[in-house]
Structures are given as C-alpha cells and as structure tokens.
C-alpha cells in the first residue's frame, strides 16, 4: 500500500486485539475534543444553575439560621458536580462524558488494556489545573477587584499553554492523558449501510464497460465515487459523471448521471475486487 502523503492517516494508531486483528483506531482531533469539552461545560453549568434555582425556591421560607447547614451542602454539591461529573461518566461503561458521546469519541488506555478507574481519576484531576485553576484564580481576583493585568495575563497564558498542549505532541494528549496513560479515540456508532453494488437500477443495466474503461480508475477513486453516491447530491453526481464520462470516452445525459454512476461503481468495484482476489491492489488511477 502506498503510504506517502496521506495526512488523514497521521492520527491512525494500530491496536492489535488478542485475536490478532489490527483495529486501527483513530485519535480524536483537537477540534472535536474542544467541542466535547465545551458541551460538557454547558451541561455542568446548566445543572449547577438548576440546582441553585431549585434550592432558592424550595428554601424561601427559612431563616438564615436554618440556611447555614444547607449552604454547606450547596457548596459541597457544586464542588462535587464539577469534579465528579467527568470521573463518573468516564469510569462508566462507555468511557465518555455526554459531550464526548455526542461527538463520538471516548477515552481509552494507551496500552490497549482496559481503562481503569485510577487512570480516569488521574486524567481528570489534571484538568483541574489545566483549565479550572487559572480561570478560577482570574475570577476570584476579578471578584475582589484586585485583578491586575499581570495575573490575568499569567492565568490566560497558563490556560492557553495547557489547552494547546495536545497540538504539540504526536498522540494529541493533554498533560492529564500523559500522566494517566490514556488517549482519546474516535468511537463513532455507525449503522450498516446498504451495499451500493446491490442496487437494482433498470437504467443502469443499459451501461456496459470495457476492461480498458474499468482500468481508468483505482481504489481511491472508487471510494470517492462511493461517497458521492451515498451523499446523493444531484449536482455533485452530474459533475462527477461528466468527469468520468470524459475520461473513459462516454457521453452521458445529465438525467442519467445517477444511473451511470451506479452502473460504473458496480462494475468498477467488481473489477477491482477481482484484481484484489488475484493479489493486485490498484491503489489509485496512477497505479499501474
């Protein structure tokens, strides 16, 4: 397989199961992780606000003497909410917080073994100094009116340094991941899609291709074609059909684009799969 110049594969790591199959996990990119984290922050903040409002409404009638112990409970509750949220969800069966679940990523142990609760705790305690500590220092200083420019800049630089840390190492790890021996991988739930070559299209049956026409493209183009067909966008299909038609010397009516592409996809795939069975993997159109 040609491996030259494939930026998408830079984040693929091999994970060999005890059965000897390489599952090729993909590391989650920084943007996805930031999105997941922001979602989690929104959830936590919402929960904190709801708890506070409910507490305020439920306790209107009480005097300040009775409120004191409840104030303690409230402070401890909010503290636990933030600190336990991440740990409890990541220690669960799906090893991901609701935010991570929404964007389809999860935490995994770097050595491939099961993720232990200790690892989850270590990586999440580190988040406390990576993000919350500098921010809370700034907030506390701001609250008492002694936030000078220097501390604010220091806090922001600190937070920035840590939040950008994943961009500066190969495995996209935070400091917490580094210490806990974890990384964050993509774990999307995919549905089984229909087999495109099993589509029965009466118009498509009319198209016939010669071996020379089928040799025009390789696997990379086949996968792109699959993408276009699954996306089912009329204009994209028309453009692609025109390009292929030009290359293999066939004139296609715009109305027939989809049928033509389906037919060509089916034939091309069967052609390339047959070559594959004979040990010839034609990676792309430049591969002879």
């Amino acid at each position, binding site marked *: 397989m040609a491996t030259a110049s494939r930026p998408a594969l830079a984040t693929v790591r091999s994970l060999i199961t005890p059965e000897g199959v390489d599952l090729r996990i993909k590391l989650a990119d920084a943007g996805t992780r930031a999105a997941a984290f922001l979602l989690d922050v929104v959830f936590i903040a919402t929960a904190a606000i709801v708890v506070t409002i409910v507490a305020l409404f439920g306790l209107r009638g009480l005097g300040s003497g009775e409120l004191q112990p409840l*104030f303690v409970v409230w402070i401890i509750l909010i503290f636990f909410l933030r600190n336990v949220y991440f740990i409890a969800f990541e220690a669960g069966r799906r090893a991901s917080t609701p935010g991570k679940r929404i964007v389809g990523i999860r935490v995994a142990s770097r050595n491939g073994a099961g993720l232990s609760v200790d690892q989850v705790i270590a990586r999440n305690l580190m988040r406390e100094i990576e993000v919350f500590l500098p921010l809370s220092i700034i907030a506390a200083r701001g609250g008492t009116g002694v936030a000078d420019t220097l501390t604010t800049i220091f806090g922001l630089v600190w937070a920035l340094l840590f939040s950008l840390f994943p961009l500066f190492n190969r495995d996209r790890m935070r400091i917490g991941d580094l210490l806990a021996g974890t990384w964050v991988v993509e774990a999307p739930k995919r549905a089984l899609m229909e087999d495109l070559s099993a589509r029965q299209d009466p118009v498509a049956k009319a198209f016939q291709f010669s071996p020379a026409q089928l040799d025009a493209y390789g696997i990379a183009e086949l996968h792109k074609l699959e993408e276009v067909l699954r996306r089912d966008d009329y204009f994209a299909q028309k453009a692609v059909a025109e390009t292929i038609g030009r290359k293999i010397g066939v004139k296609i009516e715009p109305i027939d684009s989809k049928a033509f592409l389906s037919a060509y996809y089916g034939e091309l795939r069967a052609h390339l799969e047959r070559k594959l069975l004979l040990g010839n993997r034609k990676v792309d159109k430049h591969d002879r």
Partner: protein
Amino acid sequence: MNAPVPGNAVRGNAVRQSLASFRREREADWKALEALLARVEKRAPRTLSEEELLSLPLLYRSALSSLSVARATSLDSALVAYLESLSLRGYFYLYGARRGLGQRIADFFLHDWPGAIRDLWRETLVSVALMLIGIGAGAWLVASDKDWFDAIIPSGLAGGRGPDASAELLRGMLYDGDNGFLSGFAAYLFTHNVQVAILAFALGFAFAVPTVLLMLFNGCMLGAMFQVYWAKGLGMELGGWLAIHGTTELFAIALAGAAGMRIGTRIAFPGELTRMAAAANAGRVAATAMVGVSVMLLFAGLLEGIGRQTITSDVTRYAIGGGMLALWTGYFYLFLAVKNGDR
C-alpha cells in the same frame, strides 16, 4: 470503445455474487452483536440472559473475522467502516472489562488507598519534614520582625488575627460559638483546601519544585499564625483549636504533596522506563492517593464545621485531633486487609 468483452461481465458478476452472499450470511450476526452491545452499554450485563452473555464473545470474534475478510476482499468502504466501529465497540466492552463500581469502591478502601499511601511513605516523610521546616521558619520570621506576618498571611484569611490584635480578641476567636456564617466558611475552607491539595499534587509534574515550595509556604503560614498566639500565651489553646480538624487536614495536604513529589521525581529520574511510562505509573499511584486525600479533606471539613466552634474544651479538642491522627495512621500503615488471590 463501448463494446463489452465477452466473459468480463460474467467474471465480475461472480465476484459480486460471492461478496454479496458473504454479507448476506454474516449480516444477522453483526446486527445481533450491535443490539447486544447497545444493551450492555446502557444497562448492567445482568440484564442479559445467560445465553446472550455467552454469545457475546462469539459474535465479537465473528465480527472480527468478518472485518479481516472484508478488508482483504471488499472495497465497500462503508461496510469496512461499519465492521471496524462494531469490532472496536466489542473490543472495548470485552477487554475493557473492569470490576463493578461497588466492588471497586470496596477495593479502594480495603486495599488501594492504604496501599498507595504506604507506597508513598518516603515522599510523605519529606513532605511532613518540609511542612515542619516551614512552620519553624514562619514562627522565627514573625518572632524576629512582626511585619513578616502581613507578608506571609493573606489579609483575607487572617481576618483580624494579627500580631497587633489583643489577647481577648484572639481568645474570642478560638472559643466563640456564634461566629456568623461559620459553617459556610468551613465549607469554603474545605473547597479551598481541596484546591491547595490538588495544586500540590498537580504541580508535581514540574519536577516537584512547586510542590516543595507550596509545602514550605503552607508551613510558613501556620508557623506565623502560631507565633502570634504563642507571643500572647495562647499557644496551647491555638494548638487545640487547630488540632480538632488540623491533624486530618494537614496530613491530607502532606499526602497530596507527597503524591505530587512522586510524579515530579519519577519524571526527573525515570530509571529504566521511558519518561512517559514512568510518569504514567507514578500518576496512577498518586491519583489513588489523591482520591483518598479528598475523602480526608471531607472529614476535615466536617470536623471543622461541626466541632471547632461547638467543642470549646482544650482537652476534648486535643483528644479528637489526636484520635483522628491515630485513626489515619493506623488505617494507612497498620491495617492490612487480607488480599484475595485473584486480584
């Protein structure tokens, strides 16, 4: 150009047929695995029947073998992606096997927590020593020049307790029961101390230097405060006031510092491991110790909120403080639960 070569379409169709039948035959198994995984990921495994539970690893292996076949023979990238994600989910479920949360919690209190603390004994000694040095230094500094007090103790925390305060004021603070938002203050201190402990732990990765400084400074603050009371002849009384929760709290902070130092020293001197692996190993022990530390701080917060202002007898204060210290040391260093063989 458009003329089909005889036999080409037929051969193509044969391949297409065999791959289609591969998918047809295996598809039911994949769907079954997907449905089982969706159930066990949401609920506990005991909701599955025994039969389903036994079929899970079989279906997983069948999916893996399908994946190998599909990768080698099929060019349907959606199919391969589906099988990859299905196998990965199965892998994480089957090999990510861990004990249930209840079992995990029991293990934590019986083995992991005391074990981690015992493992950190050297760092704990250093940490306590640093704090004692800090106390000595703080007391000495304030004794030599009382201006040092303002430099060491933030004015918000001092709350009027300074070298210039009268003995009556200082005494009142130690024994007055009705102290405003007292319990709220205790809870504030609790979260504050957890922050200090987390800081001591988390800053350890910078080769333990910030942790050492933090331990020294924490001791310094204590020493400065102590000196103020000692000068007014209230040393014993302040000792009691601090002891009731302080033994637990200071011990917890010392342990947090020890955990931080473990990480820092392991990163600085990884031995035969790579720096990464050494950090990860140390991180696991230290994190276990840290969860314990937050439990200790919770106890300290409760003792402080309930006991500090309601119990005003020095003897009882010392007894509770000493008792807690004895309890913790006994639990960490003397209590050895019998280990199960299969752990």
